[in-house]
């Protein structure tokens, strides 16, 4: 490789004519600059406190508790399968203990997907997503970990990489390459299940604590700000990781929960959680029925147009998500993904223009 020195010299020798770069304002710009800016609604407000309190008490705390219950069941069923007398397991094996472990995994995955749809508070602080749900899982890394226990049947989980742990690794050991009882693989499956259980218990405790804690208006404003940013991140994840990338590039075998055949369920759970948090409604998961939806909060703050736009955009996605599954034609899924993107426009453009929200994803943010 040779360096193009002449081009570099030309660029370096160039005088950067800053004189010409001095901005001269037009009369219209000058007038605009002198016009008083519209005051933004402060986030610190009793309605923000009520919204955040409701969210933590009625959604995050009970949903985390439900996930912890499902985590307990998952650990028990994994232990039962790996202690069973089954001699071998293949992807098509039907065995009551294996079926029970698989069903427990599906249950835990669904409650985790709901809980993690919008990640605030303990989910972020504990890096739970990386610990429990790193994708893509790497089979080679998983094999390496299984082959190298810290002691027979024991693994130091704080030293195991994200790509060989959590729900995706369990999914692999339950469906793709099922772990046979009384092998190292099955011992590791049990360790993984306990790791999920322990993290779920910690999350339940942490959210219960947050739900019971009093918050100043400033603290509630901070929670709300994070919530808005993470709501946008959740929508982006549904659009890109769940829907677009498997269609555009990776293939449906890289769609979420493809190994267990639960892609449609995973899409549905994430969407219903996001939808319920946004506009509520009859299809919302249980806990969300007692939560003030984001659109109602906006309405209460006087942002009725923004609330109506969000409701309209959500309804447009509903139709696409209805019955979406890996066999749905790609263009149809891409159209749904595009509609998911449209939902975010209100929150990323119109709401910050009216409310004191600071977006990490701001279109004005540079790089």
């Amino acid at each position, binding site marked *: 490789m040779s360096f193009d020195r002449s081009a570099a010299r030309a*660029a370096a020798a*160039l005088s950067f004519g800053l*004189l*010409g770069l001095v901005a*001269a304002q037009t009369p219209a710009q000058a007038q605009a600059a002198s016009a008083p800016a519209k005051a933004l609604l402060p986030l610190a407000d009793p309605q923000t406190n009520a919204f955040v309190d409701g969210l933590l008490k009625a959604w995050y705390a009970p949903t985390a508790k439900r996930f912890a219950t499902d985590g307990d069941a998952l650990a028990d069923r994994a232990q039962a399968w790996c202690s069973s007398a089954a001699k071998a397991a293949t992807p098509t094996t039907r065995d009551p203990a294996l079926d029970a472990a698989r069903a427990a995994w599906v249950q835990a995955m669904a409650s985790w997907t709901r809980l*993690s749809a919008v990640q605030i508070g303990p989910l972020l602080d504990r*890096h739970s997503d990386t610990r429990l749900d790193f994708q*893509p899982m790497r089979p080679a890394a998983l094999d390496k970990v299984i082959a190298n226990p810290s002691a027979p049947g024991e693994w130091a989980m704080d030293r195991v990489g994200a790509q060989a742990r959590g729900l995706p690794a369990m999914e692999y050991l339950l469906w793709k390459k099922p772990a046979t009882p009384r092998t190292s693989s099955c011992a590791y499956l049990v360790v993984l299940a306990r790791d999920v259980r322990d993290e779920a218990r910690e999350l339940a405790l942490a959210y219960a604590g947050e739900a019971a804690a009093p918050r100043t208006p400033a603290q509630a404003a901070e929670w709300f700000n994070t919530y808005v940013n993470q709501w946008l991140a959740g929508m982006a994840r549904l659009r890109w990781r769940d829907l677009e990338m498997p269609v555009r590039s990776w293939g449906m075998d890289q769609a979420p929960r493809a190994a267990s055949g639960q892609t449609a369920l995973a899409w549905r759970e994430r969407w219903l959680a996001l939808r319920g948090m946004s506009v509520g409604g009859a299809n919302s998961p249980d806990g969300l029925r007692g939560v003030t939806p984001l659109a109602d909060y906006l309405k209460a703050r006087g942002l009725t147009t923004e609330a109506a736009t969000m409701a309209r955009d959500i309804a447009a996605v509903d139709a696409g998500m209805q019955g979406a599954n890996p066999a749905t034609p790609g263009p149809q899924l891409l159209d749904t993904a595009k509609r998911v993107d449209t939902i975010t*426009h209100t929150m990323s453009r119109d709401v910050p223009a009216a409310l004191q929200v600071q977006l990490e994803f701001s279109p004005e943010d540079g*790089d």
Partner: protein
Amino acid sequence: MATEASRRRCLRALAALGLLPGTVAFAQALKGPPLRLALAWDETPVEPSAGRTRCLGVWVLADGRFEVAARQVVPTRAHGVARLPGGELLAVARRPGLWLRRWAADGRLLHEAWAEPGRQFNGHVLPSADGRVIFSTEQTHDDGAGCVALRDPLTLALRGEWPTGGTDPHQMLQVGDRLFVANGGVPTRPQTGRAKLDLPAMDSSLVAFDLPSGRRLGIWRLPDPRLSLRHLAWHEASATLGIALQAEHDDAATRARAPLLALFEGASLRAAPSPEAGAGYAGDIAATSVGFVLSATKAGALMAWSLHAGWQPPVPLAGACALATGPAASCALGGERGRVEGGAPALALPPGCQPDNHALLLI
């Protein structure tokens, strides 16, 4: 608006820097082929309820204003643009990015690649000087480790990678048989997009690779870990690498007075003294005859650094960001207006178009 007194101060300072002869180059540029810029931008929709359209393409300077000459819509916001030796262009999504495109200056999409599972693009791409390989800053999702990916110029397929020894790698610059890379060092996570969640763990660095072997020649850090090294320019005469900085301090006052520029002269990395009003954020950097110019986006100004005389008075340009230099002209774009080298009046941007951080001069 700049006052007459500050304008005169700028004139004196710029004259001292030898920046005034640019007027000649501007006149030449107007007589020659029209000035064209490849860049990414956001279009504000006419319909209020529609979202912004993220575009990539070419602007041309005509009749004292920029016009869109070629345009393609991109899936998410684009960031860096680069040109292959044959004239084709490259563009990549800003972090956490999922797409990379090869395209023609008439706006045609020639090829598109998507990030492999578990990877992301970080906003900059650079063809090697001989055009045989494309360098792209990327990072993996499991541990956030940064790398320079080596990709095929035609298929854009991944051929290999060199770990950068840091995270959040951003812009690259080839200087002879060395490839410099700025590790921005800002930790992010795939599930939280661009949210900066763990700033106390920031670890920004400058790394150099030997070409074509990929051997790492060294890694250098500034004493202040909250300064993110992001964009690079080379001052040939003094063999100095200029690095534009973005401050990530928790405290707004500390951020506001943070350095904007770091300098690497071959052995060590040091921060230039803080300018008076840089607001801790430089969006782009270019070399000048006497040093570097940086776009202080949040301060709404261009900041010139002379290697001999230090900082010069800031030159106001609202939303200053993209700086483009070429043999025949130079250009800076702000949020609302653009300027080309010389004393021409401010140039209108295409209506409703907000340029991104970088632009590439095509003449």
